[in-house]
């Protein structure tokens, strides 16, 4: 970690900050999530309300601290499902054969549906609930994780040390676990971060459209939506949840961008 560039350290700090918020948000919040604390609505930044108040006069800081839990947890669980599924299937496909053919064609179809459209059709059919959101996001981002894992694994599989292991008579499980996996963990971790960013953005977009997390629960995207009326007069209640999302996603991008061995040009 000592070799992390400055941008990477900023990214790491932001990501750690949001993990802490997600874990301990309610304990840190000065007010309750539904508590109306100000007679004025859409009030500006003040000492009492560092992020202003919302359309009902609730403390925005508290709303954001509570809301971040939804964003981070839903996105994390969906990403984890997508990446774990994608990697397992990708490694299986890297061995080639009909498994590879079948999975690749199947995921080609999923990838050909724009992700927002996919989510909208599912939500129209089943309604928006947190399990549906997690499942949909996981399905949408599994093909990408699959493709990444497959191409990384295939790259390693083509190397001589894997041929050497095959010639020795090693079975596929040994080759995948001992020869391939240790050489792809770095890039796969970066891929996890990248996909997490995509998931956060799509989830926030859905919630912003009112089709993601449903009231009374609210993630960061939903916070932007419920306060959109304040946009016309520049209320901080609209801006801060959006900035919160941005700081999480930019932080993650900065972090993975500066991971060793991943120097983008």
């Amino acid at each position, binding site marked *: 970690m000592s*070799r992390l560039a400055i941008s990477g350290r900023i990214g790491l700090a932001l990501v750690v900050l949001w993990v802490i918020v997600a874990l301990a948000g309610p304990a840190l919040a000065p007010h309750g999530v539904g508590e109306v604390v100000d007679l004025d609505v859409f009030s500006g930044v003040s000492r009492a309300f560092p992020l202003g108040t919302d359309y009902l006069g609730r403390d925005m800081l508290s709303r954001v601290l509570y809301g971040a839990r939804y964003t981070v947890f839903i996105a994390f669980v969906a990403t984890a499902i997508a990446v774990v599924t994608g990697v397992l299937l990708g490694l299986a496909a890297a061995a080639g054969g009909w498994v590879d053919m079948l999975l690749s064609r199947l995921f080609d179809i999923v990838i050909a549906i724009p992700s927002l459209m996919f989510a909208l059709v599912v939500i129209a059919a089943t309604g928006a609930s947190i399990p549906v959101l997690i499942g949909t996001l996981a399905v949408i981002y599994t093909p990408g994780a699959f493709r990444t894992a497959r191409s990384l694994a295939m790259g390693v599989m083509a*190397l*001589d*040390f894997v*041929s*050497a292991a*095959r*010639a*020795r*008579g*090693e079975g596929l499980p040994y080759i995948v676990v*001992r*020869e391939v996996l*240790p*050489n792809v963990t770095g890039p796969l971790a970066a891929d996890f971060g990248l996909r997490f960013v995509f998931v956060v953005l799509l989830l926030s977009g859905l919630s912003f459209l009112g089709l993601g997390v449903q009231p009374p629960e609210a993630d960061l995207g939903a916070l932007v939506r419920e306060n959109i009326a304040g946009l016309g007069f520049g209320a901080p209640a609209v801006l801060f949840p959006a900035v919160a999302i941005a700081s999480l996603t930019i932080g993650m991008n900065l972090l993975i961008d500066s991971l060793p061995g991943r*120097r983008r040009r």
Partner: protein
Amino acid sequence: MTAPLARIDHLRITATGEDGCEIVIVPDATLSVAPGEVLALIGESGSGKTTIALSLLGYARPGCQIAGGTIEVAGQRLDTASAEELRSIRGRTVAYVAQSAAAAFNPSLTIMAQVIEPALIHGTLDRAAAETKAKDLFRRLALPDPEGVGDRYPHQVSGGQLQRLMAAMALITDPKLVIFDEPTTALDVTTQIEVLKAFKDAVRDLGTTAVYVTHDLSVVAQIADRIAVLKGGEVQELGTTEQILFAPTHDYSRALVAAAAPRTPAVAPAVEEKPLLDLWGVVAGYGGTNHDGSPRVKILDGIDVSIRRGQVLGVIGESGCGKSTLARVVAGLHAPTAGRILLDGTPLPPVVRRRSRDELRRVQMVFQSADTALNPAVSVGAAIARPLAFYHGMDRASARAEVARLLDLVRLPAALADRLPGELSGGQKQRVNLARALAARPDLLLCDEVTSALDPVVAEAVLDLLIELRRELGLAYMFITHDLEIVRAISDDVLVLYAGRVAERVTRDGLRHGAHHPYTRLLTASVPELRPGWLEETPARDAAAAGGARMRDMGCSFLPRCPKAVDACAAEMPPMLIEDDRRIFCHRSVDTLAGR
């Protein structure tokens, strides 16, 4: 000596590392090139030879910079020149012929457009005159179809031709100095001679001054007037070609010359009469199979091979002849579509999956690229210990002792066991690869170009080790290489492959007494000797060589290049001719072939 045309004085070139600190690539180099001479820069990879040569164009690769010293060509200082001045010098005063012309030609433009580009940029000729001159140069460089070749795109032309076309591009502006950067390294030995001859004739006829970068001393002997021996970015020795070849004074020059000199063949230990490995009629390829079960793209066709216990069989042929596929077939990595493989007379299943652990143990493979043959995430000790546990069920403690013994066997210190492959040099890695293969206690070692990626001096030491190991352990080798010198040094028998079929099998002594098959002849005649003047004595050959080797469905594949072809060659597969120490596949009689 007259005033030099080009001079490099106390040149220092540095690079910026990943972590931002400075790496010195060329600490302090001084040399000069006289007008009309060919100066060779020779050294192993990392010796700075290309970096120094490029500095004569005022150019440093991205990430590198010229940090000190002076560079002067034809009275112009390059180290202090502006970008504009450098542009007017490059391609005009100094021209460049790259190592891989296949990569250095733009795939989107016709060859002619690229060849005449320097003349048009520098305004030395108008388009029509430049095209006429280009065609003249094509003719001079012995290119087939000099009128039409310019209209083609780079991917439509063979590698050997592209290399000559690149020389035409360099010569079109009549530059004062031409830099040849390993221009024949990527070519097959038979093609290399054609290209070398064309270069030499053109350079001599036009009186061009040249700097010739290479790692191959016998190539240098043919083309250079003087040689600069480089190591670690410094000139170790600079002298005339004769002096460096026959009376080198510096230790490193001596080592280089010794490594390039023909080896006295090792005394072969007695070979048992018992057959170890037999291949009968092996056919292999890619791209699925036709309805008759033959592969769509045939790589190997009807291969018969036999290796006796303790015997070394050299397999030789140019790139694409199927020699690596042959090793992969024997190792069970590439399933043949037809034919049988026998180990000790019992059939060996075609793929790894169906072979028993003991069958697998007895045949071990050592790969060409030492860098990729070891898992970068696994320590040397663990890599060698794996076959011990896998084949011999050894526990951790006894494996540790055995790893130390194996490392000692390949002349590496036992302390290396805890290192990762990334911390090792190329030669060390290849020794670890050997140790890993030996850990299985095999009967047969498949060596696929095991020394060709190594620097000459290092390769020489690995070869010595292989010869010693054979003597100590009584191993049989299938030794695959494109280098005839290596085959001569190590093999008992030699199998010559051409376009996926056997051309000839001959004993080492038989080969020494003269090649018979026309292809073997061409091959042996194409290996440059380590003396000046050899190239001139070698007769010119047909241009068909440039077409490359392709397997023909009917008749002899060597037909298009064969000087002795008769009518039957086109229609029928060549029959096998048997003489006491050789088997030749040819339509002509042994007497005709031997010139008796």
